[in-house]
């Protein structure tokens, strides 16, 4: 089974992002970049499925030329090869349409993506890609047994593939929903699907020899003019200091009258 996985380079979620003085962009200079954590989960899921069903895991990143580092990390985790579309910052629609071209060429049976990237949290690319391809999709894939379960310790995939179908448990507001999708399909990962593995040292050494194909974005003939315009960035309002309450009665009273949550 051929699986395509996407990996986006995002700003380190543990560091504070700074807004440029004109409020029109984020300051990337001096920022630390990491693979989108949801994408690491996607890579892990793909590797587990590959272990169970054989085939190939191909990693795609669309973005800055330095994103080859994030591809290399996925290769060190165990993926087979990479495709790097070198481009400036794109909106999710352009990303989905570029991915569509790659999917048409690579013809995978499954595309696994993070449900969103932790930089802009758009949560759109997977859904748009499924729409453009006319493929079934299951977003927010999760592991029903949970991350402390024996199933997770045994590195069992959360997505079950059998008889040309994928069975996916997904998190919805009211609980868990089980979907059966005809392959080929798109799956996007939630936080509780798996614990991604570390790139082991032997993996790191092997990754050195794995190929990454670099493709300039212009070669796809896709119109990447942004459909979304970033108008302004602003810091969230600083949190106000809390108040101390004398007793439980006052707390309950404040929750009712001020916070209005009970």
């Amino acid at each position: 089974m051929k699986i395509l996985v996407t990996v986006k380079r995002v700003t380190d979620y543990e560091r504070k992002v700074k807004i440029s003085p004109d409020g029109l962009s984020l300051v990337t200079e001096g920022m630390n970049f990491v693979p989108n954590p949801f994408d690491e989960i996607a890579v892990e899921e793909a590797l587990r499925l590959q272990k169970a069903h054989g085939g190939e895991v191909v990693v795609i990143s669309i973005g800055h030329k330095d994103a080859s580092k994030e591809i290399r990390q996925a290769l060190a985790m165990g993926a087979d090869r990479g495709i790097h579309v070198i481009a400036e910052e794109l909106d999710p629609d352009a990303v989905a349409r570029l991915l569509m071209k790659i999917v048409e060429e690579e013809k995978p049976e499954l595309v696994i993506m993070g449900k969103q990237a932790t930089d802009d949290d758009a949560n759109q690319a997977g859904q748009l890609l499924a729409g453009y391809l006319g493929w079934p999709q299951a977003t927010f894939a999760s592991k029903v047994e949970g991350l402390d379960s024996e199933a997770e310790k045994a590195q069992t995939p959360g997505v079950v593939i059998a008889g040309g179908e994928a069975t996916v448990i997904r998190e919805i507001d009211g609980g868990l929903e089980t979907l059966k999708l005809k392959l080929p399909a798109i799956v996007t990962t939630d936080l509780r699907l798996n614990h991604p593995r570390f790139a082991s040292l032997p993996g790191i050494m092997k990754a050195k020899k794995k190929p990454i194909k670099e493709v300039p974005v212009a070669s796809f003939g896709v119109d990447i003019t942004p459909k979304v315009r970033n108008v302004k960035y602003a810091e969230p309002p600083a949190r106000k200091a809390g108040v101390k309450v004398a007793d439980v009665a006052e707390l309950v009273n404040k929750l009712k009258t001020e916070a209005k949550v009970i």
Partner: protein
Amino acid sequence: MLFEPTEEHRLLRQMVADFVKREVEPQAEEYDQKQALNVPLLRRAAELGLLGLTVPAEHGGAGMDAVAAVIVHHELSKSDPGFCLGYLAHAMLFVNNFYFASNQEQKGRYLEKVISGEWIGGMGMTEPGHGTDVLGMKTVAVKKGDNYVLNGSKTYITNGPEGHVFLVYAKCNDAITAFIVDRDCPGFSTSKPIKKMGMRASTMSELIFEDCVIPAQNLIGVEGKGVHHMMRNLEIERLTLAAMSLGIADRCLTEMVRWSKERIAFGQAIHTFGQIQRYIAESYAMTEAARCLIYQTAKSVGPESRNRIGSDACKLFAAPVGKTVADYAMQTLGGAGYCVEYPIERFYRDAKLLEIGGGTVESHQKNITKDLVRMVD
């Protein structure tokens, strides 16, 4: 580029930092208090390929260099210097030393077991009567038929209580010789763990040889030529010990800056006070200087290239930096710094060891001066 010369070095640092965050940091305080080596964690490090870090790939290792060794010790010590010392005694003092000194037959017998972490290793050089003056050691080995018989004792041996196998130096006809001693060799025993101020997530004990019989195949290299292996391995040992001080300094600096932003005194964050600024700024400057010296020196340390004066200089400079920055961090945290609830007191206790273990600062002063006197006309 100085700190991560290749893509592999960068990925290695990222992997170790992730491992530290997810698996090392959560257990650090517990094992410090238990005064025990976390053996399952060492085996986890083996799964990640860290125990055979410097062993070439054709023998089951990762084939990485001294810069990589510095990266691993630097990152581990940001969280758990005690565990890192146990790792160092295994991966540097035993595995690295053994690999470059042993023959094929010996590699076949031991390498897989120690790279996989099935067996834990250590190295015995120091004796109750001979530390800095190590060449004066009294442990003797006498050849008897197909065996050597060892008598004497070693002390302060990291991983002594858990170790399955040790690289031991003893005198054969008055010349230092290296041997491999298995725990089950007749006449070999270890003392109870020796309690210590810091580095409590690793253990140490005496190694005792009472007519200890080891097969002659356990002679490492040539009889009487053990000093060569000892001196070569001391370089990567001192370099990685210096990297541990750097990790301690990095962590203590971060903790001190965070605290200084949050702690309010006299109505203002304490980082606005000049005296606190001195602790922070001096810690930063000395940590950066240690970083540059250690990574720069690491480039020239390897099995085939020697840099004794460089590795001595790294440890001489970095060990007091780790200790001083831990001290400044404790001062910045005030009472909280002294309490076990915060990690600083643990780093403070751990930091001191680096001025003693692997050579005292005085021994580095002695070695460096000796080398310079020889080098300068």
